[in-house]
């Protein structure tokens, strides 16, 4: 593994009103701190209707990283944003189970598609909120049912 010269920053992608974080490299203390800050800032904007943490690129999840992911989810929830972790590799999932480690209170999904669908099913208030703020119905609605992403 290469040590980066400056602190690597994990990009946060917005898709269909949700935040997506894809972890591709080993997480260090500094990178995790940075990620938490970035996620908090993104949540603070108030328009995030969920956070997906994709760990399909992670081949080893030890207790430290697991705790960091859980902390991230707890922090997001404190800011009103639900988190779904997706892409857990089978070998990693089996190892977590054998270690007796879980991600309590953190929802999981098999892959990104299902994670987004899960968040959609948890956030029907998206429409309600729109109406409460007096937006006309057309603007309060989200992307159409097929899940096409909007800008």
């Amino acid at each position, binding site marked *: *593994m*290469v*040590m980066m*010269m400056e602190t690597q920053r994990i990009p946060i992608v917005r898709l269909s009103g949700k935040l997506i974080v894809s972890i591709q490299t*080993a997480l*260090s*203390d500094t990178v995790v701190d940075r990620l938490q800050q970035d996620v908090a800032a993104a949540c603070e904007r108030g328009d995030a209707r969920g956070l997906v943490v994709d760990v399909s690129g992670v*081949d*080893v*999840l*030890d*207790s*430290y990283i697991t*705790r960091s992911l859980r902390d991230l989810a707890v922090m997001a929830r404190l800011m009103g944003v639900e988190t779904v972790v997706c892409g857990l*590799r*089978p*070998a*990693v999932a*089996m*190892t977590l189970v*054998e*270690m*007796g*480690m879980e991600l309590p209170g953190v929802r999981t999904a098999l892959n990104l598609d299902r994670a987004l669908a899960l968040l959609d099913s948890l956030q029907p208030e998206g429409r309600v909120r729109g109406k409460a703020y007096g937006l006309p119905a057309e603007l309060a609605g989200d992307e159409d049912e097929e899940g096409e992403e909007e800008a």
Partner: protein
Amino acid sequence: MNEIAGEILAILRRYLSEPTSRSLLTSAARRANLRLETLTRGDVPQLVAQLGPGLNIFLQEPEKLQNCKSLLALVAVENVPPMPVEQPVESRPDGISVPIRAEHDIVRARTLGKDMAKQLGFSEVVQTKVATAVSELARNIFQYAGTGEIRIRRIEGKRRGIEVVARDQGPGISDPALILSGAYRSKWGMGAGLRGTKRLVDEFELDTHPGLGTTVRIRKYSE
């Protein structure tokens, strides 16, 4: 050789043995018509170009090759902070020794552990368990002792497998039995790491005394 040549050598030594690194470097310098005693940053791209073929032969894994080349390319750049002096991974006939001094050594140690498990023919799941156990032990060293060492070696004989010894001169654990029993239930932290590790492996030995450091020895057999 001068400081800049030294930087290049240090990078090569992360991936290759000392003799191989030196030999690749000197022959590359010769082909590029450069002297290692007076190497400038401007010379580096030429030198790296001559190192290319040798690296392609010795570094078979595409990711390592790419990483190595990226690091070498950076040496040519002015004002890049010097590479932290890194203790080389020591190769022994039966295994390797990884010093744990900085956080990235945790990833280094577990990657090497996973590689060795793979070479031994362990399945993906077991490779992951070995890597995770190494990660836990290495992180404990880093977080609680600051420095230490992870030794990974093959076990030959009627039962083939892998052995990892994690050693540090840290504060030691005052009540290891209590920590391991899980009665003191912190969900995260050193105790959880050790308990988790114990569940992943076939043999687990903890040798620790307050003020005298800690040694953890684990073994995973290939069944």
